[in-house]
């Protein structure tokens, strides 16, 4: 099958190997999210939020990042729907199911935070906070260090459409374009047209959110996030701009929200939005890159992998009462009360 060299979308193309790699990651992300939705309903987990419908775009992002620790690498201020990005970067499913199962082994939060609230120092994934907007205020800071440090590391900040209403979105644009101090920030908006139950169009008159970059000289692009080929190239251009020009870029990805907002709203599958994965499979089938059988096999394998990741996580220990205070403070040589960590009120 891999004799087919390229797959096309409009004027753009992607080599078949890459297409298959993207497809496999999309399947794994979708299967994992669906399995974690189950967890939230069965009591194996308490809560689900994730990215079904964003896999095409998010996988392409994950595959093009410069992964590592420190200012030589990309800094990531992710969204709570960025699961596919992390899988594409190489995160094992287990590190998601551990968080879904609120285990002490959860590398993102020790079973403390909601699913999708990632934190991985080894890959510059700064802790995702539930506070919509906050990351847009922080992103210029990581980018500033990167700019000063040299190299081609950039800062990527990903948020939703509704979240662009927060003043911090403007803060990010202003701070990234201070004259002579422009910063390599890639501002990504995954526009699924919804903020929980509120349609984007009921609250926002901007034709495209990226239009807001124009007055600041921030170039922008709107991309069909359901199309992996378009997404791949839009991300390639955007990242290249930031890496080379050391200036901001804004990318708006039109995506679907296939299971509603979160488990709080039921996480039922919606029927009226395009499914990037189904579309991609249709395309790859038509292009002869994949067969029905090879697709089924992939899904099967992903399901097995997800099941194992859930099973493994559920066997791992939960926190104990002693864990409540852990990591409140980093050890400090200049603190006589908390030289190590927090141990309750001063005594």
């Amino acid at each position, binding site marked *: 099958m891999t004799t087919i060299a390229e797959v096309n979308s409009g004027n753009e193309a992607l080599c078949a190997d890459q297409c298959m790699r993207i497809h496999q990651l999309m399947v794994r992300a979708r299967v994992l999210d669906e399995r974690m939705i189950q967890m939230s309903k069965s009591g194996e987990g308490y809560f689900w939020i994730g990215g079904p419908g964003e896999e095409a775009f998010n996988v392409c992002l994950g595959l093009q990042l410069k992964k590592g620790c420190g200012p030589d690498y990309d800094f990531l201020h992710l969204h709570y729907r960025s699961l596919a990005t992390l899988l594409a970067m190489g995160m094992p499913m287990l590190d998601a199911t551990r968080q879904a199962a609120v285990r002490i082994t959860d590398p993102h939060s020790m*079973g*403390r935070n909601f699913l999708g609230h990632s934190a991985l120092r080894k890959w510059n994934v700064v802790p995702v906070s*539930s506070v919509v907007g906050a990351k847009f205020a922080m992103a210029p800071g990581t980018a500033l260090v990167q700019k000063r440090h040299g190299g081609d590391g950039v800062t990527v900040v990903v948020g939703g459409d509704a979240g662009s*209403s927060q*003043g911090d979105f403007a803060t990010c644009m202003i701070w990234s374009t201070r004259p002579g101090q422009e910063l390599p920030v890639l501002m990504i908006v995954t526009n699924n047209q919804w903020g929980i139950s*509120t349609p984007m169009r009921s*609250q926002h008159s901007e034709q495209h959110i990226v239009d807001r970059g124009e007055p600041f000289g921030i170039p922008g692009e709107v991309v069909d996030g359901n199309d992996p080929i378009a997404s791949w190239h839009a991300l390639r251009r955007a990242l290249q701009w930031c890496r080379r020009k050391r200036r901001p870029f804004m990318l708006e990805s039109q995506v679907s929200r296939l299971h509603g907002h979160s488990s*709080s709203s039921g996480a039922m599958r919606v029927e009226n939005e395009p499914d990037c994965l189904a579309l991609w499979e249709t395309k790859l089938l038509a292009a002869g890159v994949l067969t029905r059988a090879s697709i089924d096999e992939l899904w099967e394998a992903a399901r097995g992998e997800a099941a194992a990741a859930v099973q493994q996580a559920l066997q791992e220990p939960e926190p104990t009462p002693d864990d*409540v*205070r852990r990591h409140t403070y980093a050890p400090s040589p200049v603190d006589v009360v908390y030289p190590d960590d927090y141990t309750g009120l001063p005594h």
Partner: protein
Amino acid sequence: MATLVQAVRMALHYGETYLGVTDILGEDVGPPLGGVFTATQGLETAWNTPLDERGIVGAAMGIAYAGGRPVAEIQFCDYGFNTIDLLKVAGNQRWAGGGNYEMPIVLMTPSGSGIRGSLYHSHSFESWASRLAGWKVVMPSNALDAYGLMLSAIVDPNPVLVLLPKALLRVRGEKLIPGEPADPELLKQLIDAPLGDRTGWRPRWPDLDEYLVPIGTADQVREGTHATLVSYGRTLPLCVKAADLLRESDGLTCDVIDLRSIFPYDWRMISQSVLKTGRVLFVNEDSEVTNFGEHLLRRVVEEHFYDLLARPRVLQGQHVPGIGLNQIYEQNTVPQLPHILETLRAVATEEA
């Protein structure tokens, strides 16, 4: 019997029908959802805002300046911390402006733990709020009080913050709201939006009556002689349970006071009870450094130090950065029934 959240909804209906409420605004408060907890389903004046808490508080203030009477919602109090400057302005504008303007806004927001909410759906807000001079702050622990406090909040021409205990929103009241049908199933049919498509749905409101819980009045929900127990919100029913258990197990009886109004608070009721019992325990789930319960303790020490028979106590949440999702975290971060019972017993029995 209505749930607490149904009571809020009915109060808002009463407010927009009879008390001049012009706007109920917030994220997802309008159709189709009517609020993430259903508090605003079917209301005439409810509308969805951008995802922008500063805009919500600011718009409410502007509406009030221009003569409207808005009820604004912060979806979770956890997301109100970027608006504290605006809340301060709402609280100081009348004073700063030499009395030029009133500021009749109601801000309502779910507060506290108990719904497995992890860091950002478990915060308490009352200790922060009690520092906002110019504001009044109330927190009901049952449906009827929610109705009565909400109406008072609407009528009061000052900014009033209504904290809704998340954990109790779906708890049914024991007392009827004046005008509500006694059958909860019927009430549900009348005023709860159906699942699924709601485009054709309209609520059928019962014929409600005015019922005001005056701001500054607490409610004495148990009477006793061995100790005074003061709480509000999620921990209030736990305190009642603890007091009942202590009576059963040890034969010790307590005054249990549901504060309801956090600022101004019903100092007279607290004071009289402490004078009677000489022992007092304040319980809340907010974090323990610079906690509103510590303020109440200071008042007790200031005015009743020489009346006390035993060390007065405050039981609070831990001073940690958040409440973790795994229930081990939550159970060991904020007061639960066993902690309350144990501390109450200690207060009631400590040798003087």
